[in-house]
């Protein structure tokens, strides 16, 4: 009984400090086999399967404390992006609870919020408000954002004339000025030149020092090794390993 109270108290207390707390999270979604009504009608006639329930995440429980830097690794289809969607709160768990305490900033994939016809300047504002910044805040930070992106001369040019490196630099620069409590990084560092990658890693280390929680999804095990103190290794929607990076990577390479 005392032990039970102790455990409960402990869970409550730790959850209060945790920025991310998942308990028994299950995620199902329906995979549509037909993308059009025409295909659907055909499928109904020949009694094909129309929807398939996919069990994407199975009984996930873990907590992430403030300031931790967690790498999420696993093969394709292991549930990494589904997990990221739950943390970003764009998707909700089928059962169980996923508690997120703090402002989440995703590093959006290349130019998701960008419009090619608009100038760099217009896109900074557009992307900024999409990420949840106030317009007045972006105005204040604008010079810093442009400087970090090293795009001073090009900022009033439509971004369709940008190279992919410039594109990415601008996207990254907007996202880091959001001052997030939880930063989600999904392979974004794969693009761009090495000098800028270096600069981003430096910035991310700065974040780490300042106590920002970072969730890092990558196929580049080197970056994970250098950067994360902890990895969560997913396989077929289950946590295979959750702990220190070195051991997790060993397990990953064995498979």
């Amino acid at each position: 009984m005392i032990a039970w109270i102790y455990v409960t108290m402990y869970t409550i207390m730790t959850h209060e400090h945790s920025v991310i707390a998942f308990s028994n999270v299950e995620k199902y979604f329906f995979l549509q086999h037909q993308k059009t009504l025409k295909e659907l009608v055909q499928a109904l006639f020949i009694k094909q399967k129309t929807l398939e329930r996919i069990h994407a995440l199975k009984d996930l429980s873990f907590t992430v404390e403030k300031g931790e830097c967690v790498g999420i690794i696993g093969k394709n289809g292991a549930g990494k992006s589904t997990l990221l969607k739950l943390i970003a709160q764009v998707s909700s768990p089928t059962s169980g609870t996923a508690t997120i305490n703090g402002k989440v900033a995703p590093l959006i994939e290349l130019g998701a919020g960008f419009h090619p016809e608009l100038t760099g300047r217009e896109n900074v504002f557009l992307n900024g408000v999409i990420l949840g910044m106030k317009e007045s805040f972006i105005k204040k930070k604008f010079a810093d954002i442009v400087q970090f992106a090293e795009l001073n001369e090009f900022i009033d040019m439509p971004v369709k004339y940008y190279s992919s490196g410039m594109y990415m630099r601008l996207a990254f620069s907007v996202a880091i000025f959001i001052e997030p409590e939880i930063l989600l990084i999904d392979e974004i560092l794969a693009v761009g030149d090495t000098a800028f990658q270096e600069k981003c890693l430096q910035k991310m280390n700065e974040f780490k020092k300042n106590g920002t929680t970072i969730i890092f999804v990558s196929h580049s095990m080197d970056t994970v090794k250098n950067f994360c103190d902890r990895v969560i290794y997913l396989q077929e929607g289950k946590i295979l390993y959750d702990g220190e990076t070195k051991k997790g990577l060993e397990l990953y390479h064995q498979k």
Partner: protein
Amino acid sequence: MKLFAHWELIKHLTMREIKARYKQSFLGLFWVILNPFFQMLIMSFVFSHIMKVQNLGVPFPIFLYAGLLPWTFFANSISNSMSILPENGSLIKKIYFPREILIISTLLAKAFDFALSTIVFILLMFWFHIPFTAYMLLFIPLFALQFVFTLGISLLLSVMNLLYRDVQYLFTLILTLWFYLTPVIYSIDFFPEQYRWIFKINPMAVFINAYREVLLGGDAPNWASLGIGILVSGLLFIVAFSIFKKAEGMFADVV
């Protein structure tokens, strides 16, 4: 609704729609005005010189324009709304904001077009010496009502088109039929009496008749049929909005 908290996002997304379009083409915003204007010229020529329409009380061009502008807003809003969710798939997968914002800003951008074309309409009113009356101010609440109705349909169809991507083609067909069942290019008096009940249950017919009554007739609208319009728009919006909000959780999984 927390829309007030997101008004900056709504503003920037609306501006993205508007700016992107005028930057894309040489004539830019002029297309917005020229398109319905030329449509009106062509139709006026066909109907007043070839088919010989008579007894409308006002010149045919302005009679037609008063119906064509609300219809253009309606049709363009819906067809743009249907593709807006798939187009912004990468945003939907990464970051949360109330998704109806995407639809609302699409409609606001179309409302901007509507306002621009209204300038030409006002010039035409001068040209044809249509007297200005206080009833014309009713045009504003009328547009608000049409906005709510259009928003309801757009919310509903955007969800359907996200699930089955050919809904937009199907609806384009329905829209053509709907156009001819709405007194845009003709007056209801030309319709056989036993079928006129169609205009009572078709909210677009109710709106367009009301626009003509307050703008061209210098008279009060038919309150009884407008009442039905208000009821239908309101109910449709409530149902559509709750369906949209229910479905919102799975957007990130299916987009």
